[in-house]
């Protein structure tokens, strides 16, 4: 069992508040990803959990015990650094066994444990090498091995894949997911890469300017972003936003006037809206379709052909709208296109940038990684639903 609770954590450097009061629960064996743009405080938050940075205020509880004053080595955590932080003058074995060497574990026992971890990560042939003689991916695995050897109750990963090339990143992502199942440990993972967040997380914590914008499963964040920031941050290519005028509020949603004048009813709850409140409509590029009778139109400025898909960048008034279209589209740059939107997939944001609540939950919004697995394997007892 390893749970982590943060209660109203704040961090101040001089007069600058970097973390402005964060509450968070991490359940046992959960894979939690902190994601956010650079400078949002995600690394600082992780370093406070690790004990490398002290919290200015609030409580950090691991398994219900307050850990604020406990040193980093005694919290039972292990951390994998972005730079790997391997000890350059020690061999792979020396690196992985360093914590045990400090703890005075006898040599044979040390070797046995290192071998065990090396086996999981396929590092056995490299045990006598120095970090200098390893490739980036191998160094990464050694850094993970060093964490595994410590047998931590919570693993911390600080942007571990950002120094790897794209192909290796995909491979390590799969390896980390496998490791999570194999070790059955609680993992906290910091990244600015939303693909890593979407693919690996049970729970994503979106941070922005030192506050939590939203916590939820990847699908919940994708389908039901709480505000404009999360909507724009999660999903690639980025969600399109444009201003709309509200026309009427009914039981089946809010009807707005799209640019170009045609009305459109978005199925969201609008009871709290002031009648003259400015609204913004958000729609993902994959939810816009080219349609000759569509309500919107614009001129193609850039066309990116990816084979199976095309990205169209369409000038609509002063805005550049991104559309993900079928790969067989024959349009060319400077053509004018008509397009429509899937109203049930559109989001409306009020003047404060908060999303209006959807009238229906997306069927996949409560899906977790565990459920993905349950679909192909017999459900594990006690699997989260």
């Amino acid at each position, binding site marked *: 069992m390893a749970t982590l609770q943060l209660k109203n954590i704040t961090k101040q450097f001089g007069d600058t508040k970097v973390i402005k009061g964060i509450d968070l629960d991490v359940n046992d064996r959960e894979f939690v990803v902190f994601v956010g743009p650079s400078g949002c405080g995600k690394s600082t938050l992780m370093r406070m959990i690790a004990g490398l940075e002290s919290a200015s205020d609030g409580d950090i509880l691991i398994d219900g015990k307050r850990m604020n004053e406990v040193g980093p*080595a*005694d919290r039972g955590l292990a951390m994998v*650094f972005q730079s790997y*932080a391997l*000890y*350059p003058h020690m061999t792979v074995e020396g690196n992985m066994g*360093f914590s045990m060497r400090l703890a005075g574990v006898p040599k044979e026992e040390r070797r046995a444990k290192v071998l065990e971890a090396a086996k999981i990560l396929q590092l056995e042939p490299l045990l006598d090498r120095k970090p200098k003689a390893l490739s980036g991916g191998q160094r990464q695995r050694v850094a993970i091995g060093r964490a595994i050897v410590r047998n931590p109750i919570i693993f911390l990963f600080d942007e571990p894949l950002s120094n790897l090339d794209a192909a290796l990143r995909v491979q390590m992502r799969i390896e980390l997911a496998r490791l999570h199942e194999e070790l059955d440990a609680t993992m906290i993972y910091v990244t600015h890469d939303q693909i890593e967040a979407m693919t690996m997380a049970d729970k994503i914590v979106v941070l922005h300017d030192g506050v939590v914008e939203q916590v939820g499963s990847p699908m919940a964040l994708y389908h039901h972003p709480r505000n404009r920031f999360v909507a724009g941050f999660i999903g690639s290519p980025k969600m399109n936003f444009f201003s709309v005028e509200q026309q009427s509020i009914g039981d089946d949603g809010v009807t707005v006037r799209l640019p170009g004048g045609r009305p459109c009813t978005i199925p969201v709850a609008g009871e709290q809206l002031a009648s003259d409140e400015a609204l913004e409509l958000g729609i993902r590029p994959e939810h816009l379709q080219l349609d000759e009778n569509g309500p919107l139109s614009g001129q193609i400025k850039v066309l990116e052909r990816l084979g199976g898909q095309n990205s169209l960048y369409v000038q609509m008034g002063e805005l550049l709208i991104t559309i993900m279209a079928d790969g067989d589209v024959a349009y060319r740059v400077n053509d004018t296109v008509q397009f429509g939107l899937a109203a049930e997939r559109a989001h409306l944001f009020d003047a404060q940038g908060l999303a209006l609540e959807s009238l229906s939950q997306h069927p996949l919004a409560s899906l977790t990684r565990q459920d993905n697995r349950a679909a192909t394997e017999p459900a594990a007892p006690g699997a989260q639903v």
Partner: protein
Amino acid sequence: MNRTRASGRTVGGLRTLSLQAPAVTLLLLWMIVPLGMTIWFSFQRYNLLMPEMTGFAGLENYEYLLTDPALWSAMGTTLLLVGWVLVITVVGGTLLAVLFQQDFAGPGIARVLAISPFFVMPTVSALVWKNMMMHPSNGVLAWLAQSLGLPALDWFSSLPLTSIIIIVSWQWLPFALLILLTAMQSLDEDQVEAARMDGAGPLAIFFFITLPHLKRAISVVIMIEMIFLLTIFAEIFVTTSGGPGLATTNLAYLIYIQALLDFDVGMASAGGVIAIIFAHIVAIFLVRMVAKNLED
């Protein structure tokens, strides 16, 4: 374009030899000529007090020197001086570098103060130490001893070599500090934090992380200091003049005595040649050690 890489060496029509010539000539004049003259004089009878005694001496100069106990004592003194100053500056420099790496108020001023002894010329610093620090009646150290109720120590007569070692160490400590501090700053902070996560305390971090990281810089400090410490002269000349007896006469000072006090140029030249060989023997050991460090 006419360009050949091999020994023909013409680049764009210019013979490269003519471009190398100034540097090679300068080097030749600068090194080979004095060396050749020293070797030549070392085989001559050449005493300024006895101008009528000239001619080829064969190995006479060397024979006389190598059987002179002063030479062996000077070699011993040189080794002791170099050895102790290296130990003091490297150990002290490493510890100071760690200290200066900590957060404290006014690091810039503290660093300048710590490094400034290096900019004081050796003669001046030796005079300051002699007349203001170690003087048996006016010195700061004597005053300190007296205020503690201890008898004042006449440093240069009771502990002559120790005094020289202290003065030279004081001068070279800043150099070691400067190099090691720079090396400290390139220590990856993540490594220290990883070690902290692994359960390393301050001492373990120093021995397992900091010291291995500084190994290369320490080798460089040892190599450079050695070159200069083998030829320490001004500090000895100004303070003890090699005495009492031969207690502080190192090889450089011995050669000076022979050349400019005894006016025996032949003998001094032979001493110079022996010093060159001695320096090379020491250097071979040290360079081997350093090179081994630089490899890993």
